[in-house]
């Protein structure tokens, strides 16, 4: 997904939002400007009578930091301290709280939370400041230009007052359409290393409330018994054994027959009762393939003419250039299905109010998805459906399915009851691993030709795998002329100035339900680009950093210079070329979601007795780093996510059924797997871009390149255990 944060785009969105506030919200009181408790100055800023500011956060918090970042932006422009601002999650309203890059759709994804909110939240904070200043100026009879707000105190000459004093008066004023924004030189909080996460304390002492922690009075817990493989249909069930379980209530086939809902008084009873339930399945339409067959289909697609000539290349010319090259490097790659496996298993809770409204309690990544689905399922207008966004225990993409899968499942489990009791749908870890959505399997085949001087003369690259976006509501964002950009992003739009690139793509048949997974297509494209660049550099006898820089040499192209910038910084900070005795280094650099990240991985040991990942050094250019320590944390986490899965993660199918079931056989990264990570942020005055995902793509290829340098082993299939690599 391309990120574009133009000021014009923002203003259009802000104007629409303000109009909704003024016209649509004020008369009915939903966002009423003033009350005895304080005031909501605009959709994003609420100030209590005691002066506590609340930032209304339109993005959910899965750990990536918007519950800190968006309040930081508001506090900066408003003129309050981080201690004076709290946050709450926005209600579901795609007109007011939409992601400005998604159209009228509220949601978090594509590493856009800060990028799309940047100008909107700055303007919201600045508008609130101007309203308070104007209210104070009117009251004091002074010119607004002489009034300031700092640390929550309004000052004009000798006169001072806490913002609370003018909240009510300010709320009666028009929201200024073009408030003056701070010059970046005036920033005190944005970019400030001392700003800490707003959610640290509650997550360290057990007080944080995730959706899993919802306990509504009289609620039932529902678990779904699903078929062994996707596509099975529930025909009937026998719950005589389940009835022996204390707390078991009953069971019902879901209206779509995709499973049987088991209801119980508590979670443990639901787990046991579901285990005991016998279900009669019609498996005639269920998936029956093995993952080896999916792999073979992908391999066959790579050996055939590609379905799409993605970059309209003169393939014959590129082929001829490679055929005539001095050196040709050819390599195939395979990437398996991967599960997201966020720590908090999927869950959500539905209740119906006495008035017949529906309330969903959910770690809602894309509230508009379930909100739209629920209008159909419950036959209610949007205003009668509320979504209460809770903290989410990770997602990595999993909580944002185009079909709102688990929220719909919960609704189906709710509609077959009499709706007198709230229903909390809980997935177990086994459900998560076995019944989920997966990073699609992909294959690549790349041929690169080098001339006698070690320069690239042609790069032929074929990609095959299952499209994520086709057939979803997001198709129009990503699919153009048949090409799902998310299958080839990171190659098709690489900043490298590679001569003679021919990029082909073949969509392979639907293998299972697939979904974006932290960094989407870049999970495999970044790997292949950076492993091939390294192989080419080595074949040319050139230093991998120097080789890459020679394809990023256009200083007038910010895309190239910023990518070169992180590459040079990572190399410098890692002391590139001088690893400690017994160690080897590997490097990779990749642009994704508008940000640039380079990483150097340093390894020791050997593939047979075990590779040790000693250190990862990362440089990132994400424009202005709103919360530098959050940026650093996202790089650390992105690196861990990228490396953890290529070490030993894969989902395989036997007869259509997922072979893995829980962490013992879908082993996560553990604390000892990476000894140290060191992150450096490039100072920048550019608008902020993403950080949730860009740390992931370079990590695995940097590791592979380091292992290749150390041992000569070329890693072509994941997980790396498939290539005979063990880790210590």
């Amino acid at each position: 997904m391309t990120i574009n944060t133009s000021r014009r785009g923002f203003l259009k969105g802000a104007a629409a939002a303000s109009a909704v506030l003024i016209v649509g919200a004020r008369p009915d009181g939903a966002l009423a400007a003033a009350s005895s408790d304080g005031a909501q100055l605009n959709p994003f800023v609420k100030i209590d009578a005691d002066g506590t500011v609340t930032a209304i956060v339109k993005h959910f918090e899965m750990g990536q930091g918007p519950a800190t970042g968006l309040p930081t932006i508001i506090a900066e422009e408003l003129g309050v301290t981080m201690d004076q601002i709290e946050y709450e999650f926005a209600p579901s309203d795609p007109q007011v709280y939409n992601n400005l890059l998604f159209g009228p759709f509220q949601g978090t994804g594509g590493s856009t939370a800060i990028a799309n909110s940047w100008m909107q939240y700055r303007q919201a904070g600045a508008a609130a400041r101007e309203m308070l200043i104007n209210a104070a100026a009117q009251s004091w009879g002074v010119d607004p230009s002489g009034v300031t707000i700092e640390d929550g105190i309004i000052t004009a000459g000798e006169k001072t007052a806490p913002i609370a004093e003018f909240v009510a008066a300010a709320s009666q004023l028009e929201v200024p359409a073009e408030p003056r924004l701070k010059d970046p030189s005036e920033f005190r909080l944005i970019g400030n290393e001392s700003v800490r996460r707003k959610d640290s304390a509650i997550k360290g002492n057990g007080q944080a409330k995730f959706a899993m922690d919802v306990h509504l009075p009289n609620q039932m817990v529902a678990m779904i018994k699903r078929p062994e493989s996707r596509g099975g249909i529930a025909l009937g069930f026998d719950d005589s054994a389940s009835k022996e379980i204390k707390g078991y209530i009953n069971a019902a086939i879901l209206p779509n027959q995709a499973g049987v809902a088991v209801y119980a008084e508590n979670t443990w009873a639901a787990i046991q009762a579901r285990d005991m339930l016998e279900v009669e399945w019609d498996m005639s339409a269920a998936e029956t393939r093995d993952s080896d067959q999916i792999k073979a289909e992908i391999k066959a697609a790579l050996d055939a003419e590609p379905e799409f000539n993605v970059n309209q290349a003169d393939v014959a010319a590129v082929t001829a250039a490679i055929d005539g090259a001095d050196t040709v490097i050819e390599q195939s790659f395979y990437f398996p299905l991967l599960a997201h496996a966020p720590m908090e298993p999927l869950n959500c809770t539905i209740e119906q109010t006495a008035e017949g409204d529906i309330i969903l309690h959910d770690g809602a990544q894309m509230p508009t998805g379930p909100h739209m689905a629920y209008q159909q399922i419950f036959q209610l207008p949007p205003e009668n459906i509320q979504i209460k966004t809770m903290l989410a225990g990770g997602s990595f993409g999993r909580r944002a399915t185009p079909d709102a899968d688990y929220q719909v499942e919960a609704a189906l489990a709710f509609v077959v009851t009499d709706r007198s009791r709230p229903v909390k749908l809980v997935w177990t870890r086994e459900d998560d691993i076995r019944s989920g959505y997966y990073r699609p399997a992909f294959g690549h085949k790349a041929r690169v030709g080098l001339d006698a001087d070690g320069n690239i003369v042609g790069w032929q690259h074929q990609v095959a795998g299952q499209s994520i976006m086709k057939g979803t509501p997001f198709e129009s964002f990503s699919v153009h002329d048949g090409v799902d950009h998310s299958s080839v992003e990171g190659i098709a739009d690489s900043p490298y100035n590679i001569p003679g690139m021919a990029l082909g793509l073949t969509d392979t048949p639907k293998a299972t339900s697939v979904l974006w997974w932290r960094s989407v297509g870049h999970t495999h494209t970044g790997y292949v680009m950076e492993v091939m660049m390294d192989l080419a550099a080595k074949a040319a006898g050139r230093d991998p950093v120097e080789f890459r820089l020679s394809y990023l040499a256009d200083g007038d192209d910010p895309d190239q210079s910023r990518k070169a910038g992180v590459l040079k910084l990572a190399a410098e900070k890692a002391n590139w070329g001088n690893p400690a005795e017994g160690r080897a280094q590997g490097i990779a650099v990749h642009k994704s979601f508008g940000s640039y990240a380079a990483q150097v991985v340093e390894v020791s040991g050997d593939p047979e007795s075990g590779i040790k990942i000693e250190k990862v050094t990362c440089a990132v250019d994400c424009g202005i780093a709103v919360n530098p320590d959050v940026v650093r944390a996202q790089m650390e986490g992105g690196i861990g996510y990228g490396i953890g899965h290529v070490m030993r993660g894969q989902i395989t199918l036997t007869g259509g059924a997922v072979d893995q079931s829980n962490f013992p056989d879908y082993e996560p990264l553990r604390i000892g797997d990476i000894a140290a990570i060191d992150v450096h942020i490039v100072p920048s005055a550019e608008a902020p871009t993403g950080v949730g995902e860009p740390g992931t793509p370079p990590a695995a290829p940097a590791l592979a390149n380091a292992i290749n340098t150390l041992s000569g082993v070329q890693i072509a299939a994941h997980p790396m255990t498939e290539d005979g690599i063990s880790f210590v």
Partner: protein
Amino acid sequence: MALSLKLNGETHTVDAEPGTPLLWVIRDELKLTGTKFGCGVASCGACTVHVNGEPVRSCQTYVEDLEDAEITTIEAIGDDKIGAAVQQAWVELDVVQCGYCQSGQVMSAVGLLSENPKPSAEEIDEYMWGNACRCATYQRIRAGVQRASEILEA
């Protein structure tokens, strides 16, 4: 059946069948939701609580085995000097991301520091191996344990 559990210094009478994991009594009966369900098979550590001062996985600890045991959950670990130091370190270093595993991380870290007040990085890695964090906050967990050790030493 009615069982008596001593948890966070108070005695609770709970209604649970033998074989019920302590996790579900804590979460669903006592409504103490800081202890998390992550895997149910003692493979992720999100459900870690202390039984007689030792970290255990509450998803694989059964109510009938806890007679006379002193159970401590994340909600009360801050009353303990080591627990308070770990929580302080976690905030100072902003260890958390999504936070779902962190109750368990804190409980394990307290267990480690209780038996080894000054653990090396290798000792931390070994002790904390069973506490998974899908956000990969491991580097800060390691630093957090060391920072808590410093706080306690001061």
